[in-house]
């Protein structure tokens, strides 16, 4: 159920990217897509009433696999956030430069390549 909500969030982002004409809204669409995937990854590792995957004495080892949360998706999400930050800054700087050149954020009016 909760995975479906993640997927709905992904589709909302996809809608923003594909259907919107304003560059800023497109960028927001990309952000929503990225966050939905990050959320999905986190939820994959999450477990109800799970504990941190750190064992302090040997007695806890048996419970580790059965009850702890999965740490790997969290590492993946960290990297994915960093990549997302790089992409975001590049997208925003291109959008600012495009606004300086065309005086608008509307992508349908940016059609110099076609002529």
């Amino acid at each position, binding site marked *: 159920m909760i995975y479906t909500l993640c997927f709905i969030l*992904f589709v909302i982002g*996809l809608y923003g*990217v594909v259907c919107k004409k304003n*560059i800023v809204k*497109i960028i927001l669409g*990309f952000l929503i*897509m*990225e966050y939905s*995937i990050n959320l*999905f*990854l986190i939820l*994959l590792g999450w477990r109800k009433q799970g504990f941190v995957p750190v064992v302090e004495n040997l007695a806890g080892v048996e419970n580790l696999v059965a009850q702890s949360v*999965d740490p*790997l*998706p969290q590492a*993946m999400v960290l*990297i*994915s956030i960093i*990549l997302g930050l*790089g*992409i975001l800054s*590049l*997208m925003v700087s*291109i*959008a600012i*430069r*495009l606004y300086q*050149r*065309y005086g608008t954020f509307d*992508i349908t009016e*940016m059609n*110099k*390549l076609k002529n």
Partner: protein
Amino acid sequence: MDNLSLFISIPAAVAFFIPIASHRFKWFPDVSASVTTFILLLLSLMTLNHETVYRMGNWPASYGIVFVLDGFSCMMLIIVNLICFLAALFSVDYIEKFYTSKLRYYSLLLLVVTGMNGTILTGDIFNLFIFLEVALIASYTLVGFGCSSRNLEASFKYLAINLLASYFILLAIALLYGKFASLNMAVLSQLMKVNPVDNIMVFAFVLLFVGFGIKAAMVPFHGWVADAYTSAPAPVSAILAGGIIKALGIYVLMRFVYNIFGMNYLISTIFIYAGAMSIVVGVLMALGQWNFKRLLAYHSISQMGYIVLAFGIGTPLAILGGIFHILNHSLFKPLLFLNAGSVEYETGKRNLNNMGSLSKKMPVTAVSSLIASFSISGIPPFSGFWSKFLIIVAAIQADKPVFALWAVIGSILTLASFSKIQRYVFFGKGKYFKDEVISEVKEVPYLMRVSMIVLAIFCSFAGFLLLGGLNGIFGPAVNALAGGTDLYITRILGR
């Protein structure tokens, strides 16, 4: 040559060292980029006929990140590093004339090399995504490098479409991790053989197909190709055509299809139809173009169609044809982009109508572009003929004569559009051509000539690499794919 991490660490280190060092030494960016890519080329030549698995930090293969070197990745390493070396040589004078910031250009170029080498070598799907993004972020910036309105527009379009593809791929990776709880390609492959096919696997495959299809410029997903190639600086177009769509697109897709999911009839049919569509749609769109680089860009789509078709047919002979066509396309298409760059360097023009009679003034450019045109249209002694011939023979052997005929038609249309280039640019005259323009034109500088001549020699004689057929130099590469999932699993996990 067992330390595969050098392929990533050397270019990455130099990329970040260039901005520091070049404030003191003006010559540093040029020299370091060319020397680094040359060293990488030598290293990749040393990996020929080697097969090894490099474990990062010595973690066992199923837990840690592994780098896998087999025949196919070795071939791709050589192709990518060769093209990047020649493009770096070509950039020395080209960037000097048209652009301002050399140090940023070369840093980004080396980051693209890092990303591509990493994507080719890695055996871990999340690691693959990271290297993919490293290469792509650098290439988005390189496409918009001139910062004119057209460059920025093309860069944003390229970014938007490829970022969509990247997120599809990331979602697919998340789904696969959620299902199989592993990121290692070999472990995934092993688990997929045991588990029956279910909806999650089909959905993940579709996402991967669309994602890498966009990066490989297959026909329903080819929207970004023409704009990105046209707006990028000529050496970057050469790397985009010769390296990025191969290493990030078709190579990874084939890894997934042959070595992880395993080839079956349905996937094969999808690839064959996508390839056949790409061949004709690309070449038909190219025929009507008057912009030199845009015409070449559409031909990229068409030539990628041959490769996809060959891998779709999937017999060892077809795979040999596909791999050889990857090599050939990485030779003649960058050569043609470098020719377009040289013409632009001397005349400042890109429209075919404004050019003419350059063959007398620029003999090296004219002859090398003639060789590349012959090669891409499949005229017999040149390299392009042999790969197309292999693909057509394989299509007939696999009982698909319609697609063989289709490939021949594509080849004839290719010849038609390249005779247009030769007629308007080098041997005849364009419609709006003025004679007084031509008097100041001379041959391009020495280094640009070197990289074009090297590529032209390869285009002429690459046919000899086929000697020995399936046991020759391409044998290990064909084996790596034709061996399917079993060989890949045994190679990495050793059982």
